[in-house]
């Protein structure tokens, strides 16, 4: 068997991905992008090596708030392992990192910023590497990744980390202080105060998403997440975290290593969920079972300019293509992905049919089902390894967690999977979405969608 492994290794060297963009290959033939044509997006032009690529993406296991494996873990101890992982596994010199941007929602802003800075020191980053936080509610982790990509593209630095952190054990959802009486004069402002579950009920009622559909979506999420865990699919992306569990009765501390999500319920059935009472509204349809879980977790994504990745010899996991954030009615904030995804996909010069995989946050089953149906997406392409109803939704981390999950799944699927989309709805009425492309394994020409008509431009089509 060792002989077979050696042969495979030698033959795989013939398919050396770095040869496609060797800097000395000045005489290479390159497919040139025709910016006037509809196929421009499919012709990746990496000649200049200046696009933004992802070379590593990791997350912690996701555990139930207050009751799960991270209930006694402090937030900075949650973030440090994933920051350490992106550096250690890629062997990048931490001092070369231009910025660390952490998405986080619930903790007081100044305190959370300090905790993230402290976590960077735990992870081995020198004081010269700056750290900041970003809060765009449930999309903060994705916003962090987008902010780093934008900064690299702008030339502020070449290497950056977009991360996410949330400990809903330490900082549960809530509202501090009183409400400005002025909100009564503005309906949309008042709707920003609606509990998230009420917005889920609004989506279900307004768009006719039945209780049964919601429960089915939740069951499917748990089933897929359990199957993915059993198949070991999450091993590539989860960084084991050694932490402590305190016995609530005796106060005794025990050291544990957390490496598996603990919110997944493999045995869940539609009839089980059918017995749960609606939480937010009498005769409603949103229950604890078909909502995302309140969770502790962290994640981190290492981005850099392509030319830097090639110079360091790092395999390219994915390419950051576009990001879009859009506003929607706060009363039905859950429809955000349905508004944001088309914008991001169009900005990338693609169409929905070109997207091979989706990670759409399952804040609530109602909004997830609505967005899926509204966009006409194939369920076999969405959250193929389960979603937030099973894995959990640590608000500030989910965006970066989805990057890790999406890119690792795209890598496993190989050439059959070229474009992926991540999206989430955002409290107070927004949606965010980003388009990613698979790494170097994508064939420059063969995976392009065949243009049906030979017309140069969409404008030329007669309709």
């Amino acid at each position, binding site marked *: 068997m060792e002989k077979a492994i050696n042969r495979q290794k030698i*033959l795989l060297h*013939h398919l*050396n991905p770095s040869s496609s963009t060797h800097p000395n290959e000045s*005489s290479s033939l390159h497919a040139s992008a025709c910016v006037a044509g509809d196929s421009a997006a499919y012709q990746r032009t990496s000649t200049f090596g200046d696009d933004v690529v992802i070379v590593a993406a990791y997350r912690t296991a996701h555990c139930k708030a207050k009751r799960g494996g991270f209930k006694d873990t402090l937030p900075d101890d949650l973030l440090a392992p994933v920051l350490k992982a992106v550096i250690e596994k890629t062997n990048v010199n931490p001092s070369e990192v231009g910025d660390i941007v952490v998405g986080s929602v619930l903790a007081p802003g100044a305190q959370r910023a300090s905790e993230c800075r402290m976590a960077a020191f735990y992870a081995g980053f020198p004081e010269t590497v700056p750290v900041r936080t970003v809060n765009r509610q449930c999309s903060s982790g994705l916003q962090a990744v987008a902010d780093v990509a934008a900064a690299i593209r702008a030339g502020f630095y070449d290497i950056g980390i977009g991360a996410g952190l949330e400990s809903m054990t330490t900082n549960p959802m809530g509202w501090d202080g009183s409400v400005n009486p002025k909100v009564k004069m503005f309906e949309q402002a008042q709707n920003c105060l609606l509990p998230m579950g009420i917005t889920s009920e609004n989506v279900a009622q307004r768009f006719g998403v039945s209780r049964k559909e919601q429960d089915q979506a939740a069951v499917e999420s748990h089933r897929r997440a359990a199957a993915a865990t059993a198949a070991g699919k999450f091993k590539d992306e989860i960084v084991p975290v050694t932490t402590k569990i305190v016995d609530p009765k005796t106060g005794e501390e025990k050291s544990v290593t957390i490496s598996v999500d603990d919110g997944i319920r493999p045995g869940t059935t539609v009839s089980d969920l059918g017995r749960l009472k609606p939480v937010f509204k009498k005769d409603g349809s949103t229950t604890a079972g078909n909502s995302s879980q309140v969770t502790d977790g962290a994640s981190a994504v290492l981005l850099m300019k392509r030319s830097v990745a090639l110079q360091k010899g790092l395999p390219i996991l994915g390419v950051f293509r576009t990001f879009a954030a859009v506003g929607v009615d706060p009363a039905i904030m859950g429809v955000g992905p349905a508004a944001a995804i088309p914008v991001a996909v169009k900005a990338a010069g693609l169409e929905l049919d070109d997207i091979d995989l989706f990670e759409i946050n399952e804040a609530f089953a109602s909004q997830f089902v609505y967005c899926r149906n509204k966009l006409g997406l194939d369920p076999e392409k969405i959250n193929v390894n389960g979603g937030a109803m099973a894995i959990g939704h640590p608000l500030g981390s989910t965006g970066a967690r989805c990057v890790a999950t999406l890119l690792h799944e795209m890598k496993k699927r190989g050439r059959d999977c070229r474009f992926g989309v991540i999206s989430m709805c955002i409290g107070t009425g927004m949606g965010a979405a980003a388009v990613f492309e698979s790494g170097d394994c994508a*064939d420059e020409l*063969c995976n392009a969608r065949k243009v049906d008509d030979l017309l140069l431009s969409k404008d030329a089509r007669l309709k």
Partner: protein
Amino acid sequence: MPIFKTPFNGYSVKFSPFYENRLAVATAQNFGILGNGRLHVLDLSPEPSLPISELVAYDTADGIYDVAWSESHDSIVIAAVADGSVKLYDLALPPTSNPIRSFQEHTREVHSADYNPVRRDSFLSSSWDDTVKLWTLDRPTSVRTFKEHAYCVYSAVWNPRHADVFASASGDCTLRVWDVREPGSTMILPAHEFEILACDWNKYDECVIATASVDKSVKVWDVRNYRVPLCVLNGHGYAVRKVKFSPHVRNLMVSCSYDMTVCVWDFMVEDALVSRYDHHTEFAVGVDMSVLVEGLMASTGWDELVYVWQHGTDPRAP
């Protein structure tokens, strides 16, 4: 056009120098990574629309990576076997008498074999043990071993006019030119930045040689001025696995690649790519041009198919 389905994945195909309708195919099970191999000798029907028939087939305990016809005996075929052996088969003898000889000197996979077309008394084998060995039919051990390469030697090819000169292509990114009468290589050509998977001499100009590489390009060199290539042929989307000069036209050459295509080039023309054949549905790893019939080509790939077609026609046409 004739097509033949092999049970194992194809690795190499060669036309016989004696019969225009005969060719040999080297195949290996499980893409040559693990399992058995088989050598097929096929006969083309005089009518192109009729199927290819199999004259004989020989099984080996490990995959066969290359095949070469003898230039001195019309019925002798040489197989380069992945277990490090070089086996001789005589089609005139019954299967129980074959292989008539098995040379077991290479310590790793043998990747190519080539028979001397001028002297016709010897052949070369190149191996992943970083060596090239020289053999004759009547001696039980190799005549000589050439040891300068630092990585797998993927190809060793005799010069078509000088009986003692050959070139070897290696994963150490160099092409070496040897004279068997000299103790060491006479020329070292750092032809590519990446592994070189194949090389071939021009049939009309003994100073011209082509190299094919993992960097997706084919380069044509003049050994009298080896600092810069005569030309660089780009167009393959993945590593180029084999390259061959035409026996009939000086400037024509053919290549096959992991991008599943076979390309024909005229290296003296600025737009060098003459035609591209995309009939294979897996890596195209073997290609040959017939010496006896001008324009007749054969290719094989990991899709377990052997195609034979006339240049300019569709290999898949019935």
